[in-house]
C-alpha cells in the first residue's frame, strides 16, 4: 500500500486474460491516478467487464500484472476489497429484503458502523427508501442502492459496470449527478460503458477497448483532437434552396469560399463542427460503436 499515491490507484502492466481459446484482454497497459475518473469505452466483448473483474480480484490475469493501490487483487483480494467499491451491471441485491436491510447486511459484512449506512444512503440519494423492498424499486433506484452499498466502507476506488444501462433519461441524469458529486470529493472512479455521451460527460480520460486491445487512452478533448476531424461548414443560398459545403479546419479552401460567398451575398452561415467520440472510435477501431 506504501507509495500508492505515487504509483497510481490502478496499474495494469501488459495484462492478458484468456478464457479458453477466447482472448478477453490482450497486453493491456493502463494507469489511473488518484482522483481521476476513467471511462472504459467499447462494445460488448471488448474487455471492459473483464478489466473490472481483474481490478476487483474476481479473476486472475493469464499474464501480466494488475495492481490496485500497489496490491495484487488476485493474491490479496481482502486488502483490495477494503479499498474498492463495485457497482456490477446486475445489482446483486437481495430483492425480498428492504433497502435498509440490504445496506445493513453489507455494512455488517464490511464491519462498518450503522452510521455509515445513513451516510452512504444520503450520498446515493436514497432518503425515504430505506423501508421499501428492493423488488418494488425501479431500475434507477436499484442502481442507487447498489451505489450506496459500494460506498458503505468508504472505498478510495469506485468501479461501475454499465451503471446507467436501461435507465430512463431522468434516472441517468440523476445518477450522473451522484457520480459528479463523488468525483468532486476526490474519489477515483472507473466506469465501463458503451455510452459515449456518458463517458464524455463524466470522465477525465477515456480508454478505448476493442477486441481486448487498448487502442487509445487520453482525455476526450485530446482524443478528438488526435483522431477526430474539426471541420468548417459553410451554408449558402443556391437559388431558392440552401446548400452546405464542408472543409477540414486546417484547409484554407474554406476561407476562400466564405470570402467569395460573402462577396456574392449568398453566405448564410459558417459553423465549426467538433469531432465526436464516435468518430474517434471509428478512427481507432475501424468500426462504429453500436
Amino acid at each position, binding site marked *: 500500500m506504501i507509495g500508492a499515491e505515487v504509483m497510481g490507484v490502478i496499474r495494469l502492466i501488459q495484462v492478458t486474460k484468456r478464457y479458453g481459446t477466447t482472448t478477453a484482454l490482450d497486453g493491456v497497459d493502463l494507469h489511473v491516478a488518484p482522483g481521476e475518473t476513467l471511462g472504459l469505452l467499447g462494445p460488448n466483448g471488448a474487455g471492459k467487464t473483464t478489466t473490472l*473483474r481483474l481490478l*476487483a*480480484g*474476481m*479473476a486472475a490475469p493469464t499474464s501480466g500484472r494488475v495492481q490496485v493501490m500497489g496490491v495484487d487483487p*488476485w493474491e490479496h*483480494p*481482502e486488502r483490495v*476489497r*477494503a479499498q474498492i467499491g*463495485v457497482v*456490477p451491471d*446486475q*445489482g*446483486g*441485491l*437481495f*430483492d*425480498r*429484503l428492504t433497502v435498509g*436491510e440490504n445496506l*445493513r*447486511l*453489507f455494512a*455488517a*459484512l*464490511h*464491519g462498518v458502523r450503522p452510521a455509515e449506512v445513513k451516510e452512504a444512503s444520503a450520498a446515493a440519494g436514497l432518503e425515504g427508501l430505506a423501508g421499501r423492498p428492493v423488488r418494488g424499486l425501479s431500475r434507477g433506484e436499484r442502481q442507487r442502492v447498489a451505489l450506496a*452499498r459500494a460506498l458503505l466502507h468508504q472505498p478510495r476506488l469506485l468501479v461501475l459496470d454499465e451503471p446507467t444501462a436501461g435507465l430512463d433519461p431522468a434516472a441517468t441524469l440523476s445518477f450522473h449527478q451522484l457520480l459528479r458529486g463523488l468525483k468532486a470529493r476526490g474519489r477515483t472512479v472507473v466506469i465501463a460503458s458503451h455510452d459515449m455521451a456518458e463517458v464524455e460527460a463524466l470522465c477525465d480520460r477515456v480508454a478505448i477497448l476493442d477486441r481486448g486491445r487498448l487502442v487509445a487512452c487520453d482525455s476526450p478533448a485530446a482524443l478528438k483532437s488526435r483522431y477526430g476531424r474539426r471541420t468548417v461548414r459553410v451554408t449558402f443560398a443556391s437559388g431558392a434552396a440552401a446548400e452546405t459545403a464542408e472543409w477540414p479546419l486546417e484547409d484554407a479552401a474554406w476561407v476562400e469560399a466564405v470570402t467569395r460567398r460573402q462577396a456574392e451575398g449568398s453566405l448564410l452561415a459558417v459553423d465549426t463542427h467538433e469531432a465526436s467520440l464516435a468518430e474517434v472510435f471509428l478512427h481507432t477501431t475501424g468500426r462504429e460503436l453500436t
Partner: protein
Amino acid sequence: MTVFALARAQVQDIVRNPMLLFFFATAVVMGGLLKATMPASARDIMASAVFTATAYFVGWNIPAFTLAEEKEKRQLEALFLTPVRPWQVILVKGVLGLVGSLVFGAFMFLILDQVPRRPLLWLTAYTVLSLFTVGLGVLLGLLVRDTRSLGLGGTPVILLLMTATTLPWALVQPRVWALQAWLPTRPAVELLTAGLTGEAVPVMRNLLVMLAYTALMWLVNARLIRRLSFARN
C-alpha cells in the same frame, strides 16, 4: 458478527419467499389427509414417509434453492466482494436447513398427532437424515448454475432418492430392499419408524451407514466450497 448478519438476512429472505407458504400448506394438507384416511395399522409407516419427505424437502431446499437463486441473481458475487468467506455463507445455509427441517419435523408431530415410543432414537435419526439432506442440498446448490438447472437436475435426484427408499420395495423385490440397507435414506427411514413404533432395528449399523454417506457428502462439499468464491481466500 458476519455469520449472524448473514443468518438474519437469510431468514428474512426465506420467510418472505412465497414458496415457504406453499411448502407449509402442502405439509399441513398432506399430514391432515394421511391422518384422516390411513388405517391406524399403517399410520406409523406413513408417518415415517412424511418425516422423510419433510427432512428432504426442507433440508435440501433451503441450501439448494438459496444458493441457486443467489448465483442466478449475482447476489453471491456481491457477497464475495465483501470480506465474507464462502464457508461462512454455506455454514449459515446449512444451519438454517437443519433447524428448518427440525422445526418442520416437530410441527408434523402436531399434525399427525403422533407420540414416538423412542423419542431420542427418532430425534437422532431425523437429525442425521436432515444433515444428509442439507449436505445434498448444498452439493446441488454448489453444482447448479441457477434455479432452472436446479429444477431440471436437482428435483429428479431428490425424487429418486426418496421414492427408491420409501416405497415398499420389500413387497416387490426383497433383494432390492436388502441392497437399500447399505444405500442412503433407507437406514434413516428404518430408524425413524423404530423411533415411532419402538420396534427393534440394527440402530448402530443404520446410523453408521447414514453418517458415512453424510460425512462423504460434506467432504465433497468442502472441496467445492473452496471453488465457490472467485479468489483463493
